[in-house]
């Protein structure tokens, strides 16, 4: 008897037939069922779509930050804005500012955990190839630049330690510059010119990644020129262009002396990046009276971006929860009406041998079917909307596997939660009362 009872309760075929029955009951009121499920449809759909958009946006931001290297600290020289005597200096004196080789050697010798440093110094002028010219930058740097900056050499090779020591006239063009100067032919082996110096092209490197969104302020002073750059040994740069850089700008010459434009400091371990950045900041504050440098810590930016994303996710989660609750209330409302409407059916079933739990199960199955179907439609819509957005709005969207799974699960759980009360109300009716109902 006992075993018989258990078998009756859990047997799969009864579940299957209860589901078929639920589908039939819902199908009798197609429009009503559809409208009821709509709340869940939109809830699930918006959760998936918003997650995909948010994930896409933060992925791009994080990718840009990661391109800078999470173990790196980037120092840049900037022209001080608060030079009170600038007016007088302009014509007569050489403006001297920024990071120095002394800073670099101090960083290397006093800051613990510093692995490598990559200095670079820029000269901005026209870069020529035959009669083609581009307003660009000659960037003097060191052989380990590509590895440290996460920039791949696409063609040819980067310059070597030997070439740096020999102050060779070799250069590596950025992709954009190579395309501009060598639209049709092979750049490697050819020569380009800046001012009076010629450089042999030995490789092509990826462009500097474009800056991330406005909040992650990674832009250097003159971002526009950076994609049009040729990289040469820093020693070669000093030989050819000297220490003082002349610029002709808005009718007057500007002379600047900047030893190093940018230094990338690599720290051995990621945990030590933030303390090291703090130490470097203190050190530079002692060495520099003006704020003629800027420090960027990609890891710090990454952390901030992650925090922003967390907040975004919380907001999103709340919106999702609200919309699903609204959907759930809609379901509950309809199920209560359904229970009232089908009181007689409940009475008939009870008279014919249905137990309370059979009635509970029947109504729960119906709400789960409603919310589950709504969830499935929502998943389908939620998966297609990001695709449409990516296609038409050129926005990156990322759908993670867990997003539709989670959204669907929540929709089913919502169905159960909001279906329990109506189901128990249905089962609570006494058979006689239910049968008398009209």
């Amino acid at each position: 008897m006992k075993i018989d009872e258990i078998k009756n309760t859990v047997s799969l075929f009864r579940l299957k037939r209860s589901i078929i029955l639920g589908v039939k009951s819902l199908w009798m009121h197609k429009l009503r069922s559809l409208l009821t499920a709509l709340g869940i449809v939109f809830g699930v759909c918006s959760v998936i779509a918003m997650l995909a958009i948010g994930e896409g946006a933060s992925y791009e931001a994080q990718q840009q930050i990661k391109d800078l290297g999470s173990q790196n600290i980037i120092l840049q020289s900037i022209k001080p804005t608060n030079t009170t005597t600038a007016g007088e200096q302009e014509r007569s004196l050489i403006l001297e500012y920024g990071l120095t080789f002394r800073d670099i050697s101090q960083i290397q010798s006093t800051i613990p955990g510093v692995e490598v440093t990559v200095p670079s110094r820029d000269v901005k002028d026209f870069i020529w190839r035959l009669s083609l010219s581009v307003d660009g930058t000659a960037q003097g740097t060191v052989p380990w630049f590509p590895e440290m900056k996460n920039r791949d050499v696409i063609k040819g090779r980067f310059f070597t330690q030997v070439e740096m020591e020999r102050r060779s006239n070799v250069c590596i063009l950025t992709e954009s510059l190579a395309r501009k100067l060598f639209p049709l032919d092979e750049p490697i082996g050819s020569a380009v010119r800046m001012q009076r110096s010629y450089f042999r092209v030995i490789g092509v490197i990826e462009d500097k990644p474009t800056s991330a969104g406005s909040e992650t302020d990674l832009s250097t002073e003159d971002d526009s020129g950076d994609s049009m750059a040729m990289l040469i040994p820093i020693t070669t740069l000093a030989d050819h262009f000297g220490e003082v850089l002349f610029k002709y700008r808005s009718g007057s010459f500007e002379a600047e002396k900047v030893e190093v434009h940018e230094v990338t400091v690599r720290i051995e371990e990621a945990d030590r990046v933030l303390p090291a950045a703090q130490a470097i900041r203190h050190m530079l504050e002692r060495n520099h009276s003006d704020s003629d440098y800027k420090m960027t810590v990609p890891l710090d930016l990454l952390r901030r971006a992650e925090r922003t994303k967390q907040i975004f996710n919380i907001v999103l989660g709340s919106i999702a929860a609200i919309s699903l609750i609204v959907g759930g209330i809609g379901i509950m409302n309809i199920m209560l009406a359904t229970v009232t409407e089908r009181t007689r059916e409940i009475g008939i079933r009870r008279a014919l041998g249905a137990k309370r739990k059979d009635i509970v199960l029947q109504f729960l199955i119906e709400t789960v079917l409603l919310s589950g179907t709504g969830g499935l439609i929502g998943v389908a819509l939620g998966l297609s909307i990001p695709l449409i957005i990516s296609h038409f709005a050129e926005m990156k969207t990322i759908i993670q596997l867990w997003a539709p799974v989670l959204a669907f699960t929540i929709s089913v759980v919502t169905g159960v939660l909001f279906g329990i009360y109506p189901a128990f109300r249905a089962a609570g009716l006494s058979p006689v009362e239910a049968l008398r109902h009209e």
Partner: protein
Amino acid sequence: MDEQSSAATLPKPVIQLKGVEKHYTMGSIVVKALQGIDLQVFPKDYISILGPSGCGKSTMLNILGCLDKPTLGEYHLDGEDVSQLEDDRLSQVRGKRLGFIFQSYNLIQQLTVLENIEVPLFYQGISEKDSREIAVDLAGQVGLGKRLDHRPTELSGGQQQRVAIARALSNDPAVILADEATGNLDSKSGGDILEIFDALNDRGKTLILITHDEGMADRTNRTIRLKDGLVQFDSKSPNAGGQQH
């Protein structure tokens, strides 16, 4: 289930009511719908219950059908006291041993003829294949072999009531209970239904019918008259009504 007992010894009653009362409380007023019913129903009894409206016929049938519990008294079904069973057990008793036929048919609208007949079997856990077989067979017996996939709304009242009869028979109950089964039907289809009842009794089924129709008294083999919640007359023991305890 077959009764092997000889005619000499009295067969065991399938139903036994002892001093059953049913009280309804409405605010401060207590309505005593049944005021002490004693009754024995034997296998193959074919009983018609008659009485004026409001005398407690339906109340009594609901108690016999385990749809309601008596306020006082005892109810033995197949020897088991079912008067105060818990809800789940009552459901089981209804599903296994009782068949119901209602005045308003009470078919489930979204189900077909076959599916309606299968409902009691479903709750008994009979397999899909077996219950389909039983349902097809019963539908044929009540003359609906060609309407298996029709919905209740596509059937006449008489046809619907025949579906209800097939449904009541599906789990091979010990007793079939009908509350004014022909009350909503014209005399022709009502007559068809009554013929089915006769045939069922001929095949050995126990039936208890509530009716308004005095003609039923001649048709059935036992008549019980109720009045004000008491048995006034029972054709099996004509002096029972006057018996005082």
